[in-house]
């Protein structure tokens, strides 16, 4: 023991007159910028997806309705309520928040005289830290949920323009699993889908590799899953929670993936058998998606179903409107075959009103369902549209499907910015390429490109295929010389709607263009051909602005007649499917009511 060991400890006395080492002002000290303090929620950005609730390992978050927040498409109307008796401030909720609305302030302390204040809804229950810009945010480059979509492999534009073969290759199993993995299972898509497909469930089936189960889930709500897996307008993807800070889940492609994976011969077994016969019969006019969906449900309910189709093949607009490169006919045939497999009698080449009258149907069947689609093209009625080289898109598309000889223009202009305009432009472009070796196709529309009604993919693919898109151009005249179309004259559009939202386009007449063309195609909309009803029935029915008046379930003013699909509602396949379900349910209910009486 050295003397130093006795003296050394006294050196500590040198600190005797130092200030205390503790933090001088613990009350007002500020936390670091990243400090995980109390929760904040930008209530307008939050969509109530509930991912925060799912990730919370303490069960500290509950999704609850709050006053002033409505349930709308893409927003559940619920908001996270946090229980600070359970929260451990791990911030996983912030990390997985799909919109980035949930953050944390950097406040250290909070005292409240209300003993229940620890249970609160950030952003709704005002707190002193609201609006604090410092605190924990999801750091850049850090993510617990993948944000990037697995891109669909497509046939190269220079190859696909040569033919009508399907463009999208479909996901491989590996690709589908990676894409399916991105789903946060919020279910906002289910609420938005017109036919309420159980999207998270069938995506989970992909992750589990259980394709039979996936197909069964698909057919629960959509007998046109193969079709919708290719051409659905996918409103679900527009509201997908992951789309707020990344790419939305490719729900449509995942649906297609399931249908691709199940061998065709397995469908019948998975889809099931028709129900026990009820003795009731239903006639359906029009073998499009609405009519055939209703047929599927009605057959499953045990009713006898006969579908009358005026054209050579069933499918309606799916066959005669959508080009084969988007929806191959063999896929459609198989899809319809599954429905026919339930005992649905599809009679093609049978035109109601000509071959069979509505009165006959009324007499022979317990209910009649009208799903006749929109097969008459509308005209712009600008000067020159009566000329020989002016066509309606739907007519041309039908001729292409039928394999009729179509006059292939050397130069063509399409009027319209919807999917039909893209379909005809791209179809004719293929024919041009085959016949002349080059594409010379222009699409013009009133809207600016970002307001086109066509899907973004369609517009992109159009561009890739060498089709010229001129947006915000208003057609003024089809130029005709010696009876032949020579071009289309357009003005620049300055506005499309007036102050109260009515269609009233305004033009800049100084900005005039003439697009040379030997064919002009109008693709500005369609209408239903209701001539089959006959005068008496037309008179008897109630109408609303040229469309049959129906109730929510699709029943017209006549108790035996239902109507649905594009002809009364629209605008796409999946809405038609939803219509089909509604009408079938209504018909079955009506049968039960009659029997009950």
């Amino acid at each position, binding site marked *: 023991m050295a003397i130093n060991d*006795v003296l*050394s400890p006294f050196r500590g006395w040198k*600190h005797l007159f130092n200030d205390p080492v503790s933090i001088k002002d613990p009350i007002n000290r500020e936390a670091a910028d*990243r400090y995980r303090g109390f929760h904040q929620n930008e209530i307008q950005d939050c969509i109530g997806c509930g991912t925060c609730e799912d990730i919370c390992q303490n069960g500290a978050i509950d999704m609850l309705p709050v006053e002033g927040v409505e349930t709308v498409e893409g927003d559940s109307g619920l908001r996270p309520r946090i229980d600070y008796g359970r929260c451990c401030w791990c911030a996983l909720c912030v990390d*997985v928040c799909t919109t980035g609305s949930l953050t944390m302030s950097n406040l250290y302390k909070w005292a409240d005289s209300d003993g229940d204040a620890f249970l609160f809804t950030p952003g709704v229950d005002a707190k002193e830290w609201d609006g604090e810009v410092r605190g924990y945010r999801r750091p850049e480059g*850090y993510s*617990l*949920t993948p944000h990037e979509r697995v891109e669909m492999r497509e046939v190269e534009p220079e190859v696909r323009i040569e033919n009508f073969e399907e463009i999208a290759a479909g996901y491989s199993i590996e690709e589908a699993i990676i894409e399916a993995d991105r789903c946060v299972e919020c279910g906002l898509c289910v609420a938005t889908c017109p036919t309420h497909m159980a999207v998270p469930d069938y995506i*989970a089936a992909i992750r589990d590799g259980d394709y039979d189960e996936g197909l069964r889930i698909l057919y629960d709500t959509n007998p046109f899953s193969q079709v919708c897996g290719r051409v659905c307008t996918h409103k679900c993807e527009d509201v997908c929670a992951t789309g707020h800070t990344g790419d939305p889940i490719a729900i449509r492609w995942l649906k297609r993936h399931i249908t691709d994976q199940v061998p065709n011969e397995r469908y019948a077994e998975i889809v099931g058998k028709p129900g026990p016969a009820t003795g009731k019969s239903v006639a359906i006019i029009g073998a499009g998606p609405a009519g055939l969906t209703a047929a599927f449900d009605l057959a499953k309910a045990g009713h006898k179903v006969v579908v009358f189709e005026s054209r050579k093949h069933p499918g309606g607009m799916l066959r005669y409107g959508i080009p084969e490169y988007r929806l191959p006919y063999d896929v459609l045939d198989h899809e319809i075959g599954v429905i026919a497999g339930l005992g649905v009698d599809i009679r093609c080449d049978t035109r109601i009103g000509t071959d069979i009258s509505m009165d006959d149907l009324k007499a022979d069947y317990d209910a009649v369902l009208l799903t006749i689609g929109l097969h008459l093209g509308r005209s712009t009625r600008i000067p020159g549209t009566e000329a020989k080289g002016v066509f309606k898109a739907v007519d041309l598309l039908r001729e292409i499907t039928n394999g009729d000889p179509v006059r292939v223009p050397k130069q063509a202009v399409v009027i319209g910015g919807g999917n039909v305009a893209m379909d005809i432009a791209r179809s004719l472009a293929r024919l041009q390429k085959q016949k002349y070796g080059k594409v010379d196709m222009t699409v013009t529309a009133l809207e600016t490109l970002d307001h086109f009604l066509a899907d973004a993919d369609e517009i992109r693919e159009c561009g890739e295929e060498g089709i010229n898109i001129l947006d915000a151009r208003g057609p003024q005249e089809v130029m005709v010389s010696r009876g032949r179309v020579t071009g289309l004259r357009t003005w620049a559009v300055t506005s499309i709607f007036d102050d109260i939202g009515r269609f009233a386009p305004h033009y800049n007449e100084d900005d005039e263009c003439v697009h040379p063309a030997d064919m002009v195609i109008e693709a500005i909309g369609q209408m239903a051909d209701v001539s089959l009803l006959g005068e008496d029935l037309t008179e008897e029915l109630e109408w609303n602005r040229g469309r049959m008046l129906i109730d929510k379930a699709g029943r017209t003013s006549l108790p035996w007649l239902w109507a649905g699909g594009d002809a009364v509602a629209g605008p796409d396949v999946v809405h038609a499917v939803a219509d089909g379900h509604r009408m079938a349910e209504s018909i079955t209910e009506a049968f039960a009511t009659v029997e009950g009486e």
Partner: protein
Amino acid sequence: MALFEPDRSQYPDKNPDGTCDIDLTSGKYLKVWQGPNHPGITGNMSVELTVCGDEVVEGITHVGYLHRGFEKLMERRSFIQCFPIVCRICVPEPDFNEYLYAATVEELAGIKVPERAEWIRTLILEMGRINSYLMYLGGQAGAFGLGIVGQWTTYVRDLMLDRFEELTGARIYHMFILPGGVRDGLPEGFKERLEETLQEVERTLKDVHEVMFQNAVFKKRTIGVGYIDPALFEPFGVTGPNARAGGVAKDVRKDQPYLVYDQLEFEPVTDTASDMFARSDVRRRDLLLSVDLVRQILRKMPDEGPIMTKLPNVLHWKIPRGETYLRGECSRGEYGYYLVTDGSGKPRRVNVRGPSYTHAMALLERLIVNVNISDVAGLMVSLHTYPPEIER
């Protein structure tokens, strides 16, 4: 009488079944419960002492006061949901749990962590080691009445916590190292501020050295006391500073380098005396080594680059069937995580091997016999054990 050789004549023989025939009614013995709320140990644990005069004849360790069932809880949670739980297994040095849990998950999931994340992880582990040792020094000195050391070390530990707060967003439970990487990079100006804090740590350690390690009282109370026979290291699973103070240069950082330890220059700190003083001094020097390692890391680590691997969606992250045991050198010795996965979204089994398990239970029972009761607290602290990691 040799102080540290058990004098078996003082206490009764053990029966073949291991029990003792201590006749408490004889008036010769006294039962004393040390703990469970005793400042001599960081956390709640008690030792049931039987004393004869002021000498301990038997000590039975009792744990369970802190049991929160972490391992079982984890079997009911998804892999990402386990990440906020594990840090709570060890309060003073939580980062080892975060790192080892993340590392086992990454190994079984086949994930490679970005290089920058590995450097940041190493930085955090070394900063955590500094904190742990600072807490230890305060406790060890406090056990012998040197309260001022605890005040100093707690102060500098608080400065370290400030740095942790800046870097990780939290002071105690950092929840920063997670499967796939780390949450963020270093904030602006962090390196400079950390260097300032390190200098403060060094200044404080100099003071601590003067009042604690060059202190006749502390030396008298610790030199030769609490001796661990190196022959016990193997059978009792003694690791870390407890073993290094006995001349065994065991250090997982060196023996089986993980993270970026193979890129750092250091030698394990050792001593030979294997008593309380040697253990304290090894820890003090190990703390200085950590300060040096932190400086090396700050100098060598890349400033740019990803901090996180692209993970699958953590909401339904399934990990293939497998099992692994990974270890690291924490301030108390070898810390290990054994993880079994069954292909589902949750761990099938997690076992946390904290060094306190062997040190605080089996080893303490052995060492405590024949120790003066006034030295028991110091002996408990000198093993540097944290009860929460005994009771996962």
